[in-house]
């Protein structure tokens, strides 16, 4: 784009033409990141802090985490190589499988409901009103921490005094032990986190909707399409690439649930909400089994990578139907 604007094609060799051509070549090289000299020294200075952070706190810990997963390590004595022991133990650990199952259950409920709700909110914001106030309101829960969200809902859903059960009682239903019952606890925590995150997800989707040209809707309207039909035939197909990216992001985030569980149920009752991160944290800091905790982190990383690849393939992310 910038290249094209610099010089019109010249047939006659004018004095400035050679220089212009060289400039254009430079620009192409610049865009492609090639070239020798360039701004090497300056770039090195500019990139240095970020690179330091990247190497020391992201790349190195990733490699170290993988290494630690093959060791027995309690922080006090040097790590001792034990080969696959941690992984063997993990495969035979019913609590690990239980926590994986609970985590998946949480992710399915959380992402399922959150995605549908966020999509609904985004479409309503797009088709009904573009009020910035409304967008601000739906974002407010995102401003409080998971800890705050957990405590507030813990209070509202309290079996005895909580307003949730009062309302249910007023309609003549029995009290629901939201966070103290094995079947209710995970869905409840999943919904609490939907409350906190749905506004942010909706805003990301809303941004995607804004990119859809309005004349597509006008044309559909002229053809007599209903809002419902437009959603399925226009909005959803055109939003698919953005939806895919948002879905991958939220699923990865959702798998790392920790704060709200730690604050509300602490993993109980009877391990019913002992999500993977909580178990990893307990193994590391409760029992000082850093090697075993690292092995479970590796397992989580593998699960996330597989899911990302599958999702990416299934949703054909990156390909747009626009244009």
């Amino acid at each position, binding site marked *: 784009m*910038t290249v094209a604007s610099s010089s019109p094609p010249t047939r006659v060799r004018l004095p400035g033409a050679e220089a212009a051509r060289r400039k254009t070549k430079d620009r192409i090289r610049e865009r*492609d*990141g090639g*070239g*020798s000299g*360039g*701004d090497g020294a*300056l*770039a090195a200075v*500019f*990139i240095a*802090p970020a690179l330091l*952070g*990247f190497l020391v*706190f992201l790349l190195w*810990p*990733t490699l170290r*985490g993988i290494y*630690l997963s093959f060791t027995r390590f309690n*922080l006090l004595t040097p790590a001792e190589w034990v080969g696959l022991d941690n992984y063997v133990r993990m495969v035979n650990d019913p609590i690990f499988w239980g926590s994986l199952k609970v985590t998946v259950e949480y992710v399915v409920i959380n992402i399922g409901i959150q995605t549908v709700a966020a999509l609904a909110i985004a479409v309503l914001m797009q088709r*009904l009103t573009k009020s*910035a106030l*409304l967008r*601000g*309101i*739906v*974002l*407010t829960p*995102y*401003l*409080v921490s998971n800890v*705050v969200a957990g*405590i507030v809902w813990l*209070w*509202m859903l*309290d079996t005895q*005094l*909580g307003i949730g059960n*009062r309302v249910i009682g*007023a309609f003549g239903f029995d009290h629901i032990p939201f966070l103290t019952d094995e079947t209710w606890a995970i869905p409840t925590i999943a919904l609490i986190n939907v409350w906190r995150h749905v*506004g*942010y997800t909706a*805003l990301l989707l*809303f*941004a*995607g909707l804004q990119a859809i040209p309005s004349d597509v809707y*006008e044309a559909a309207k*002229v053809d007599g399409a209903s809002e419902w039909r437009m959603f399925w035939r226009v909005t959803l197909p055109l939003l698919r690439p953005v939806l895919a990216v948002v879905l991958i992001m939220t699923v*990865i985030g959702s798998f*790392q649930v*920790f*704060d709200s569980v730690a604050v509300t149920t602490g993993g109980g009752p009877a391990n019913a909400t002992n999500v993977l991160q909580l178990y*990893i*944290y307990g193994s590391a800091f409760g029992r000082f089994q*850093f090697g075993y*905790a690292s092995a479970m*982190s590796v397992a*989580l*990383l593998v699960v*996330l990578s597989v899911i990302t690849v599958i999702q990416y393939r299934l949703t054909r992310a990156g390909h747009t139907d626009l244009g």
Partner: protein
Amino acid sequence: MAAVTTTAPRTPARRRISPGRALAWAVMTAIVVITLVPFYWILRTALSSNAGLTADPSSPLPTGLTGGGFARVFGQQSTKEALAQGGAGGSIDFWRYLLNSVVVSTLITVCQILFSAMAAYAFARLRWRGRDRMFGLFLAGLMVPTIFTFLPNFVLIKQLGLVDTLLGIALPSLFMTPFAVFFLRQFFMNLPREVEEAALLDGAGKVRIFFRVLLPMASTPVVTLGVLTYITAWNDYFWPLMVSYSDSSRVLTVALSIFRAQTPQSGTDWSGLMAATLVAALPMLVLFGCFARRIVNSIGFSGIK
């Protein structure tokens, strides 16, 4: 043609509200209510007394209106008084934790945004060998879930002797996040090159151009990213929980969870707990209030595309 097709079908829709639209508004209203009710309930409970809460749990207004909850949070009540009102006798050293949270969040936000912006500029506008390969490496970093680096980073922070310090909490996110680099690079890539060239002709160096021309032009994405980074740093719980052991480095989120753990299981001090919750959440709500319009308008526009 355009005039005919746009005016004719529109007028009837404007005149009366269709059932579909009414339903849509009802749904939207319900969403707003569900979003805001918990905030009101925090306030209502914080201003109630524990005795009042037990006597009349479903009153929409504060029952037994009192500032006792807040007094307990700030440690303004004697232990005897606090116990009598249903507290655990504990308090949170609010101003200290607030200061800790402010220091950590500010440090992370300022450094992270500055360093990420510098890297983003180098990736977008400077020309150097291996640039694209290096950017690919940064992008791959987006894939690594934060939890994965927590344990090894904790070991590193411990070896550096920074456990239980504010620097220890801030350090891992001080330099960059792949997302911030990616987000700002997108913006710099889309700036017209002519701006830079004009400044170059005026004899400004590239460092000067970055700080005096490009960075000010990037104020909207920088503010958006800054506020989001601040909120994320402020609300972070897992990492500070790992690193801090004492008051010297305890941040508000961790303090809040400890306050919650302290309240007696039989007859939780809900009034005090909600006062503490409000106090912990308020700074971010105020911060957002100041930047809300700018943020809601720019989220996503340069982030995902």
